């Protein structure tokens, strides 16, 4: 209950954060255009279209979140709110988790809205499972990618000056999302550790992956491994950001 109340207030804060909307809505629209116009696009009329759109949204909107959340753990240091929140009997990790959850709800809402609109269109065309699929895509493809981008940004922001952290976080996300396995440099794409949803999309929804899998098509198990891996990465990134932020706070 307490956590819900904290998330509710954080939601309000991020909901009124104009810069977040200004960054995320145009990128979501751009992603939607790409999802429709791309030669790889299966269109908007079936589940594969929903999954593909979810992946494109995850890739492009996460660029904005990689740039936006470098001060997620550190803004409070500048404003004094960090000190104030430290005097709460609630653990700082719980307070920060509520902030992350609130930010995540706001971040996903614009993309989710587009997925829901596509699902409604599909329902009118007779696809009764479309809404469920849209929600599933938001949960297992869109959300992990967004949270990883936010986590990278938050961790780098806790360790580095904000502007440098923003640049590096965008570069890191660009490497994770766009680096093709066809080039002779290491990449997670093409394997089950990819963070843009290919293993889940192919393994669970039977779509064509964006990057050709290195070791044959992704299976249901690849999807499970991928999701667990992404959850671990998310936890590690935010725990690291929290620890780094606390460590710096104790030194000043």
């Amino acid at each position, binding site marked *: 209950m307490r956590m819900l109340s904290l998330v509710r207030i954080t939601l309000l804060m991020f909901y009124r954060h104009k810069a977040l909307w200004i960054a995320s809505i145009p990128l979501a629209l751009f992603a939607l255009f790409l999802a429709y116009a791309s030669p790889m696009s299966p269109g908007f009329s079936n589940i594969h279209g929903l999954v593909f759109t979810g992946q494109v949204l995850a890739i492009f909107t996460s660029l904005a979140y990689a740039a936006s959340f470098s001060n997620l753990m550190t803004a409070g240091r500048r*404003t004094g709110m960090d000190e104030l929140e430290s005097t*709460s009997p*609630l653990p700082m990790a719980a307070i920060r988790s509520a902030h992350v959850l609130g930010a995540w709800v706001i971040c996903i809402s614009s993309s989710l809205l587009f997925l829901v609109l596509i699902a409604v269109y599909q329902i009118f065309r007779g696809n009764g499972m479309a809404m469920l699929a849209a929600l599933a895509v938001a949960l297992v493809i869109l959300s992990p990618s967004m949270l990883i981008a936010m986590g990278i940004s938050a961790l780098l922001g806790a360790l580095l000056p904000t502007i440098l952290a923003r640049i590096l976080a965008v570069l890191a996300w660009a490497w994770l999302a766009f680096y093709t396995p066809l080039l002779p440099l290491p990449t997670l794409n093409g394997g089950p550790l990819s963070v843009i949803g290919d293993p889940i999309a192919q393994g669970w929804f039977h779509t064509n992956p964006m990057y050709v899998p290195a070791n044959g098509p992704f299976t249901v198990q690849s999807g499970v491994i991928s999701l667990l891996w992404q959850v671990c990465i998310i936890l590690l990134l935010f725990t690291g950001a929290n620890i780094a932020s606390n460590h710096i706070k104790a030194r000043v």
Partner: protein
Amino acid sequence: MFISIDHLTKDFRGRPAALNDLTVDLPQGMIGLIGPNGAGKTTLMRILTGIIKPTKGKIFIDGQDLSSPANRRNLKRHLGYLPQHITPYENLSPLEFLDYIGILKMIENKRARQEQAHTLLEQVGLEDVMNQPIGGLSGGMRRRVGIAQALMGDPRLLVVDEPTAGLDPEERMRFRTLLAQLGQDRTVILSTHILDDVAQTCPWVCVLRCGRNQYDGPTEGLIHEAAGHTWITPPIAAPPNNVTIINAEPTPQGTRYRIVTDTPPAGSVETAPNLEDGYMALASER
């Protein structure tokens, strides 16, 4: 709440010790915490509020050792804190912000939080703007939001760092009165450079210098440090040498100085000391 600080030391890497073997007992009521910049006041308050841990030493509050996480968590339920620099979340209104602080202080009942927030915002004179975004409020109004949040949850220990900085004279007096009222049945630690605020509200004072306790005791005792050493000079052209000048009052005949010294210039008249004189007398004793 009775606070006992026992050989407290805080080292920050690469800097002189912010607190250096500080030992002091603080009784219940209003306590003025004063000292020059860098004396360790803010560090002491940050340790008292559980934000940072000491390098060495202990703090006992009503006999409970704060080095125990359970005791620290218990204290935080009864703690109000106003940091020196605070910018409340600008996207929230004062009412929403106080609601947030209420959640942080584990006030479970939403209605109770809202009622308390309303009352406190009225007490600090923000009832007309309680639904406007904090980002649009003046610096003084934001400070008052900070003061109101420190009082959420009816804390038994209130720690306030420079609370009246940025307030207009009317608000300053209003807040001073509020603090004095609160200090009747709880412990309030008031850190400030405005000695007049301490003189008006705090029966007990603690002076820190270079992380050490230079004085702790009744405020009257500190004032007494300057008894027999506080003088008003006749109007003179140049400031006297080898004295501590408290203030200077220009007159058509020259400047009249209020000084603390054992050897006043000829024609000086002894006067009753105040807290500023006592503080300066103590500072010049080092």
